């Protein structure tokens, strides 16, 4: 199937069509295959549902998880334990299923809390998901007669339906879950997941609640895995600790990698195919097969990180798929009073701000105020603490001491999301954006904090405030909404970044060397935009710049930083003409606290 961007109803139409086709295949399947094959397939179908969740977590969101098998095992053991020790029947069955899913989601919540906090390294998160199945298998081992320990439980009462019925259940679950998954990754929310994978830090600064999303995703994935595990146990009538184990968890990763991470259908098909083949072979061959799968896995990771799916997708592109869908339309966002409107307090107030790394003091007590409708430039030689200052304003955990107040409210130790919610917008020195998202998708992402992101739909309009639309017009980006970010020129990327930051409706704009690498014409354009932002839209803009000509042209006030403290501040001409500042820039600052 080709890969153009589907709009709302078309995506739903395609999903329905796909689901119906797959459903038909599932319905007909057991009538065409022999009992042995059907048996193997049922297991594979249940497992493939879990593989799909791994792709959503890892392929799309970038969360490397070894632990989906743990939730699969929870569902399986819920079934076996309830039926073995308590009772059997439709009501017990429903209870067991509910227990399984509930327990899995609770464990997922705890795991997520442990693994996905702001500042956690992805490695740590992966290790927690690694520890999860290990802890669970050990718990099962220590359960004695209750859990069956290392032998597991078998022969418990279950529904002894004909094999076709189980095939339809397993197949039905897989089709339903995959269809929902497909709609999820195609939606606005799905693009947020990809953005998290590509540049998590930038997402945080756009106000995206990354940790909460990851935890919620993990819980949903746990629920699906538990349901699949429940079905698996009911069918096979046997549970063993291996179902919750680490080895199965990594097999899911292998299927995902081989099928093509981030394609959803690839891993599902790979999961079914590889598992069926492994079960179908007998004798020594299963070990050889596992060996080959392992080698293929290594080859794919090293040489083809995106698996085999892109090969098939490239072939699919040869089939004409109709005209591409038009991207979302830009509309005006309702003009709302920002957080700054209610209060008389200045948009930005920094007092006695310090930042030390061990014994190295980078910022030594900076006090300054940023007013509305003002463009304040922060200048100073390299390494003097300008970017650090900006970091301390946008991330409450950064500073070592002092206070930061946005619109009269203290930032405290808040994460970047909190600063963004309070009205801070920050651009970065390097333009690292989201390579595989289009301009339209980036803008929609930036609106998440204000407008939310639809789970199974894609909005066909992007609501942007006037300043953002201004920039898009000025840079010509409004003609390039369907362009992927990686194809934009450097100047356009800067413009897009600025538009995205403005889309979050900030009252304080922190810009870190916005003109770096721009041509003279582009500098002029940016300068005009920034001036308009302060004059017409009343923003407070704080600018770090090296280009003193640029500073002179557009600033209202200038602050000079030197060795972590404010050397001087005042009107542009006053500061620029000052001998002290000239001396500092020319390197004669020997008497101003120079090193001995």
């Amino acid at each position: 199937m080709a890969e153009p961007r589907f709009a709302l109803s078309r995506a739903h139409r395609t999903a329905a069509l796909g689901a119906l086709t797959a459903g038909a295949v599932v319905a007909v399947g057991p009538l065409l295959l022999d009992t042995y094959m059907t048996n193997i397939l049922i297991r594979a179908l249940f497992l493939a549902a879990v593989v799909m969740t791994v792709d959503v977590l890892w392929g799309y969101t970038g969360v490397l998880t070894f632990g989906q098998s743990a939730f699969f095992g929870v569902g399986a053991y819920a079934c076996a334990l309830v039926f073995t020790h308590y009772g059997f029947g439709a009501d017990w069955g429903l209870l067991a299923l509910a227990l399984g899913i509930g327990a899995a989601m609770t464990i997922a919540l705890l795991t997520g809390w442990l693994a996905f906090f702001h500042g956690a390294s992805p490695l740590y998160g992966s290790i927690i998901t690694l520890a999860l199945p290990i802890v669970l298998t050990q718990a099962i081992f220590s359960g004695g007669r209750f859990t069956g320990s290392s032998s597991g439980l078998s022969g418990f009462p279950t529904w002894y339906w004909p094999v076709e019925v189980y095939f339809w259940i397993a197949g039905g679950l897989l089709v339903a879950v995959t269809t929902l998954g497909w709609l999820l990754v195609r939606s606005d929310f799905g693009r947020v997941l990809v953005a998290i994978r590509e540049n998590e830090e930038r997402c945080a600064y756009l106000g995206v609640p990354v940790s909460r999303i990851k935890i919620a995703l993990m819980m949903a994935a746990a629920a699906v895995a538990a349901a699949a595990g429940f079905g698996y146990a009911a069918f096979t009538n046997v549970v063993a600790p291996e179902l919750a184990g680490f080895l199965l968890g990594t097999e899911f990763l292998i299927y995902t990698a081989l099928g093509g991470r981030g394609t959803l259908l690839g891993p599902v098909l790979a999961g079914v195919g590889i598992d069926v083949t492994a079960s179908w072979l007998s004798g020594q061959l299963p070990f050889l097969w596992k060996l080959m799968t392992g080698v293929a896995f290594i080859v794919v990771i090293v040489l083809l990180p995106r698996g085999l799916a892109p090969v098939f997708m490239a072939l699919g592109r040869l089939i004409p798929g109709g005209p591409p869908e038009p991207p979302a339309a830009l509309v005006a966002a309702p003009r709302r009073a920002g957080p700054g409107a209610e209060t008389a307090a200045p948009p930005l107030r920094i007092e006695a701000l310090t930042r030390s790394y061990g014994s190295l003091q980078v910022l030594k007590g900076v006090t300054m105020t940023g007013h509305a409708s003002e463009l304040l430039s922060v200048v100073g030689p390299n390494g003097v603490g300008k970017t650090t200052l900006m970091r301390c304003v946008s991330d409450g955990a950064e500073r070592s001491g002092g206070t930061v107040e946005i619109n009269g409210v203290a930032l405290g130790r808040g994460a970047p999301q909190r600063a963004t919610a309070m009205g801070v917008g920050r651009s970065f020195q390097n333009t690292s954006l989201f390579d595989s998202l289009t301009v339209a998708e980036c803008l929609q992402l930036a609106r998440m904090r204000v407008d939310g992101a639809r789970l199974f739909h894609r909005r066909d309009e992007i609501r942007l405030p006037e300043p953002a639309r201004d920039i898009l017009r000025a840079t010509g980006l409004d003609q390039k909404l369907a362009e992927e970010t990686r194809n934009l020129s450097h100047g356009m990327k800067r413009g897009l970044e600025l538009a995205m930051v403005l889309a979050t409706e900030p009252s304080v704009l922190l810009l870190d060397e916005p003109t770096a690498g721009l041509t003279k014409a582009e500098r002029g354009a940016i300068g005009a935009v920034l001036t308009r932002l302060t004059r017409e839209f009343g923003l407070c803009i704080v600018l770090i710049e090296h280009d003193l000509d640029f500073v002179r042209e557009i600033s209202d006030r200038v602050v000079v930083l030197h060795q972590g403290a404010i050397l001087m501040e005042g009107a542009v001409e006053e500061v620029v003409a000052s001998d002290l500042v000239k001396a500092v820039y020319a390197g004669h600052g020997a008497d101003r606290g120079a090193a001995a």
Partner: protein
Amino acid sequence: MSALLAIEGLSSGYGAAPVVRDVSLSVGAGEILAVLGKNGMGKSTLLKTLMGFVRPMGGTVRLDGAEVTGRAPHRMARSGVAHAPQEFTLFQDLTVAENLRLGVQTDALFHERMPDVAAAFPRMAERLRQRAGTLSGGEQKMLLMSRALIARPQVLLVDEISEGLQPTMVDRMAEAITAARRELGAAVLLVEQNVAFALAVADRFAVLKLGEVVEQGAAGDPAAAATLADHLKV
């Protein structure tokens, strides 16, 4: 005097946009070329490109006639190029002695050349066992220069060594650099914002603006000094 270091049409940058644009310079053996310009104009990037840390987008670099464009940093170092960078200059947790040892390829060479270093910078000899991170800013610059010189380089790339130094220390640095020119016959590329220091030490100068060479001249020439002031006005 044929150029020991010949740079022709060199362009490089960190992303799509070039920060160094079509730069052509040459430095002969025993010659000091000062590279001047305001902040963010591409001076450090030029040195990093020469050292192999930034991949060139175009142009050539020749060392003593041989082409070395885009060679990896460790091979440039072994070819006799020493780099005294502006940031991440020393191993803060290693001692002065360990930092100096890392300036040469074998410990035998270190012991052989240490007396020369001690003569030029006696304070380094006194502090051999001290952790580099505990030295004062000026002492760290001294250590940086000692480490560059202990390698007896053919080409010395110096990035804003005078920044934040007291006048006496600045003089000491000037002495060390001119000694390198005299005793080693090294070609020195001196990136500086401190114009006075640069012109006092260098033979020639070049001005970089927005990544391009906009002016070149002899350091002693008063007419050149006048246009220089224009380019560097704050």
